[in-house]
């Protein structure tokens, strides 16, 4: 088999068993890594209603087929388990260096079960695997732990994937990091790892992807061509030049910069937060992931000192900035640093704090609850204090570490209205009232509110725009307004969701392939086929993506999710308070009608959203039909 070692490492932390599983090619072609492989394993090996913090929860760390290939942005891996934040299908992706290093060590995936009796870390050097004590590392910040592991193992090139103290303390939105600047942030999977007493997975490998490839020359030539094109395409050029922090000003101008817990769409202090301010106040360098020429990562200095952690990306800037009413870049950078050191998702942490701020301003949380912290919008000092409290589950942090949904349930009254979450996961910093497909993505995503379900509406708004033209191989040719729903918009959503899902399977970052970014769609297929020799068609590729989302859907149905969970926070059906889209709201009836249309397009029952058996057969998921809920 080409393109993969086909080997999965299976570790049982309860009894210390370490085993190797080898995948067959006919299996791997249907589930070629990432989201697909993780989904298959979870659906078949994790019983429904397993407590996410119980040792029976199953964690999968899955590379994509192309992770580690010499192609820019082919760097991503997926971590999955039952999420402690949503109670549903848990998934988080990251890039950086850890996934490629795991591939170079000869592994496609790691499946972790059970719980160690004391804190441990895994040490994987090629095919040698050891479970090492992490008792001396427990409680320490991520920068210190990375250095300690590299030092005690005697190799500075070891790649370390780790949780932080927040994961140890079971903060429901704790994440994990590799190289301190690439994050599996969403869905609280760091807390699952913490519940297993697993602090880190250290990896070192030396096999080159080229040795796995069916046609290494074509793969390398394609990668070389793609690398050279980075500076010649406006999308990739902008990612390198400004990166995502450049989003603040245009989103504000468009009235879709989430501000004060999504009450508003424009922020009065945006002048202090534009790219020019970021570049002047924070930026020290631009960095990259493994073998990637895009270089979208920002390095920063915080309070005049080089930070050991990556600089804040847009989501962090948005979540700790305008959405908390804060316009101080230094405070935002510190907030990001704290989250990286304790290892918490900046989106959910910021979204939970903005929820708490609004509760405080409405008297639902008091100074007594916060033990004297004046937790109002705009109070940066308070925000930073609360981040620490959350990481340690102390004071008000004990409540907020549960996430905004559970915190709202505990507070009661109108608090639920201020929790900007779907299925328990906080919204990312994109305002759906300006981009309706983003809203549909938040609603329907298996993992709760997620902004990476489809490429955003704005890319397809104007005929002759480069992103729309680049989408033609997917069958997308018609421009549609961002604030529209209906049949054609849902067809656009359906196709884009399959394509994004494929990227999550084979390991492409969203800043790689068109239509979101610069890599021609044909080159994605070319890379897959050069790696494997499979002669995969577009139809097969999209089916792989659709198979993966259907498995995640079935997982959630088994956990008791239903159509009523595919919804949006009530606030989004109400009017934006300010900005260019002042007075706009998501149209509720149209939203529900479009959800029905979308379900139908996906081959699901249009009313219930349950996949139809014939759809599952079409996708080769006959084995999953028995897992569907009974018809009513």
């Amino acid at each position, binding site marked *: 088999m080409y393109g993969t070692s086909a080997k999965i490492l299976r570790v049982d932390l309860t009894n210390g068993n370490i085993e190797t599983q080898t995948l067959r090619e006919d299996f791997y072609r249907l589930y070629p890594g990432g989201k697909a492989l993780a989904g298959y394993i979870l659906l078949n090996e994790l019983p429904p209603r397993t407590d996410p913090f119980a040792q029976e929860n199953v964690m999968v760390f899955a590379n994509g087929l192309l992770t580690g290939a010499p192609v820019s942005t082919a760097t991503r891996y997926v971590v999955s388990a039952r999420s402690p934040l949503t109670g549903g299908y848990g998934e988080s992706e990251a890039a950086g260096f850890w996934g490629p290093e795991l591939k170079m060590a000869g592994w496609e995936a790691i499946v972790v079960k059970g719980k160690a009796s004391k804190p441990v870390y895994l040490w994987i050097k090629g095919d040698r695997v050891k479970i090492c004590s992490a008792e001396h590392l427990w409680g320490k910040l991520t920068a210190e732990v990375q250095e300690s592991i590299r030092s005690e193992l005697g190799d500075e090139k070891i790649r370390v994937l780790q949780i932080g103290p927040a994961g140890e303390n079971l903060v429901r939105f704790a994440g994990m990091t590799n190289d301190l600047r690439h994050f599996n942030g969403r869905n609280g999977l760091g807390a699952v790892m913490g519940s297993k007493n697993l602090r880190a997975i250290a990896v070192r490998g030396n096999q080159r992807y080229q040795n796995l490839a069916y046609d290494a020359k074509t793969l390398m030539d394609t990668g070389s061509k793609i690398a050279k094109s980075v500076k010649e395409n406006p999308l990739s050029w902008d990612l390198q030049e400004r990166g995502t922090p450049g989003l603040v000003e245009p989103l504000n101008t468009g009235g879709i910069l989430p501000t004060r817990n999504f009450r508003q769409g424009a922020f009065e202090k945006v002048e202090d937060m534009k790219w020019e301010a970021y570049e002047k106040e924070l930026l020290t360098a631009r960095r990259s992931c493994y073998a990637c020429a895009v270089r979208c990562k920002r390095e920063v200095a915080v309070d005049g000192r080089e930070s050991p952690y990556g600089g804040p990306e847009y989501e962090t800037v948005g979540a700790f900035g305008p959405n908390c009413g804060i316009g101080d870049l230094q405070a935002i950078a510190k907030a990001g640093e704290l989250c990286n050191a304790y290892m918490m998702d900046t989106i959910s942490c910021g979204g939970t704090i903005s929820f708490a701020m609004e509760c405080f301003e409405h008297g639902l949380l008091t100074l007594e609850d916060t033990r004297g912290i004046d937790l109002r919008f705009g109070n940066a000092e308070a925000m930073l204090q609360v981040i620490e409290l959350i990481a340690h589950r102390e004071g008000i942090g004990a409540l907020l570490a549960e996430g905004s949904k559970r915190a709202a349930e505990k507070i009661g009254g109108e608090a639920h209205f201020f929790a900007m979450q779907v299925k328990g996961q906080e919204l990312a910093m994109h305002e759906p009232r300006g981009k309706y497909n983003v809203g549909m993505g938040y609603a329907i995503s298996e993992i709760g509110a997620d902004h990476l379900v489809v490429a955003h509406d704005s*890319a397809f708004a104007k005929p002759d725009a480069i992103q729309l033209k680049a989408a033609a191989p997917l069958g997308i040719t018609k421009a549609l307004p961002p604030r529209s729903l209906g049949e054609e918009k849902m067809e656009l959503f359906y196709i884009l969701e399959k394509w994004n899902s494929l990227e999550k399977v084979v390991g492409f970052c969203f800043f790689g392939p068109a239509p979101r970014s610069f890599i021609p769609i044909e080159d994605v297929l070319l890379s897959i086929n050069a790696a494997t020799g499979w002669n995969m068609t577009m139809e097969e590729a999209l089916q792989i993506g659709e198979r993966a989302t259907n498995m995640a859907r079935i997982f959630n149905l088994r956990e008791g999710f239903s159509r009523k969970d595919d919804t949006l926070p009530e606030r989004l059906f109400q009017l934006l308070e300010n900005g260019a889209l002042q007075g706009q709201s998501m149209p509720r009836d149209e939203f529900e009608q479009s959800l029905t249309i979308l379900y139908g397009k996906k081959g699901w029952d249009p009313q219930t959203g349950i996949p139809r058996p014939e759809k599952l057969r079409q996708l080769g998921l006959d084995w999953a039909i028995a897992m569907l809920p009974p018809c009513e």
Partner: protein
Amino acid sequence: MKLHTGSYLTFYMPGRKSSLELSLDAPTPLVEILAQVGIPLSELALAAINGKLVEAETAMVQDDDQVRIFSAIDGG
């Protein structure tokens, strides 16, 4: 007038710089200025003159105006 670009429109600016100053003898259609500078109208998603959003296709620009333009903004 002062023209400022954001998102990936800066790619199309002279020297790929995000700011440019132009003297206008008379009120000029924005589309003409964009054509002159080399910014494709198809990539323009937002245009604001002196802080107010305008329709790019019909907007007129005066010599002392501050113009900010952006391409489509996607997530990541």
